[in-house]
């Protein structure tokens, strides 16, 4: 009974009451765009000669995309790349997780050609997640602009208490495919859990 009364009271100050209509047109349009683009994305494993795609199937000018991504990432984060080697000869590279503030709605469409241009790409398993760092045990370096290391420590932006890529939390024990530019891990679909489709994309981009 008291719960009922409490809820009724609080509903009086609901900023978005249930009888207020919402516009779904823009949402439905976005949904259609994603599905159209995603259909192309799913064909990565089928047609590795035709990598560039976006909604509607128009091809990109790859250099422009690469430049755009690089410029955005440089503008939004300060990076640190540090190579260390401890007494047990376990080497660690430090990257940072971008506190981008960039909405994925403003991300460029995923493109294997863009992926192939990333200076740092590796696969590994998350072994430790603290309030400040995610540690990845690297099992394969696709490419790197410095020496290959055993571990990668990804520092979280200040003030962030959960480590997430594109809104999805890292999980200890899960394997990830990660790219980085200027010491900053790339989101926007260019890093993420190692699904079969994503593995195929990385293999296509870097040749295994």
């Amino acid at each position, binding site marked *: 009974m*008291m719960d009922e009364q409490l809820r009724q009271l609080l509903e009086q100050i609901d900023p978005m009451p249930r009888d207020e209509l919402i516009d779904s047109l823009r949402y439905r349009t976005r949904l259609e765009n994603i599905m159209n683009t*995603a259909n192309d994305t799913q064909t990565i494993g089928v047609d590795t000669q035709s990598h560039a795609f976006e909604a509607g199937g128009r091809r990109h000018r790859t250099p422009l995309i690469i430049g755009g991504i690089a410029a955005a990432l440089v503008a939004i984060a300060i990076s640190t790349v540090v190579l260390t080697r401890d007494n047990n000869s376990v080497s660690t590279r430090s990257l940072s997780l971008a506190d981008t*503030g960039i909405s994925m709605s403003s991300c460029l469409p995923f493109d294997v050609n863009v992926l192939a241009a990333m200076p740092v790409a590796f696969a590994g398993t998350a072994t430790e997640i603290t309030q400040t760092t995610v540690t990845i045990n690297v099992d394969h370096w696709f490419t790197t602009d410095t020496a290959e290391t055993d571990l990668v420590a990804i520092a979280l932006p200040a003030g962030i208490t959960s480590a997430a890529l594109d809104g999805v939390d890292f999980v200890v024990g899960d394997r990830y495919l990660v790219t980085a530019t200027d010491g900053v891990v790339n989101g926007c679909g260019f890093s993420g859990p190692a699904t*079969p489709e994503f593995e195929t994309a990385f293999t296509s981009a870097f040749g295994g």
Partner: protein
Amino acid sequence: MTPTVDALASRRDRYQQAAIAVHEPVFRFVRRRASAEVADDVMADMLLVLWRRLDDVTDGGELPYCLGVARRCLANQLRSGERRKRLFGRLSTNMPRDAFETQPTHGSDDYPELRQALAKLPRSEREVLTMWAWDHLEAREIAEILGITPNAAAIRLHRAKQRLGDELRRKNLLPTGQSTSGATETQ
């Protein structure tokens, strides 16, 4: 390795059905906590994450999953807004401080005592309480969204109800002599 045409079509259908089903509750959830502009971006982010992670989402678990994603995207959006504010000294006027604030975007002059009582709750309790009252989420769903155990969510919700109930009784907004229900009743 390569998905079959049937599998892709099936995935696409599932995605479309899930996206349509969660639209209204997720949009209302986000809009209750952020401006229309921010809500629009968060919804776009949520749609993309849902597509990419659809295979990880259990059947029937789409709504809590999408609410959890939206909550994290919202937190990112609002953090970046704070950063811009620090950099440029200005900000959208109706942007809450973070994803857990519950500043209504309209009608904010009504029910001042109720708003004050709600505002006095600890942020974590305010968040679960508004999820329960406004979004009609149960403790187990709240737990999934927040990444805590159902028991912890139920206890937090129970405390929040008790604390707010006590405050409202002091203000004579609720009748005295009653107490809020037990935590298990919320599940």
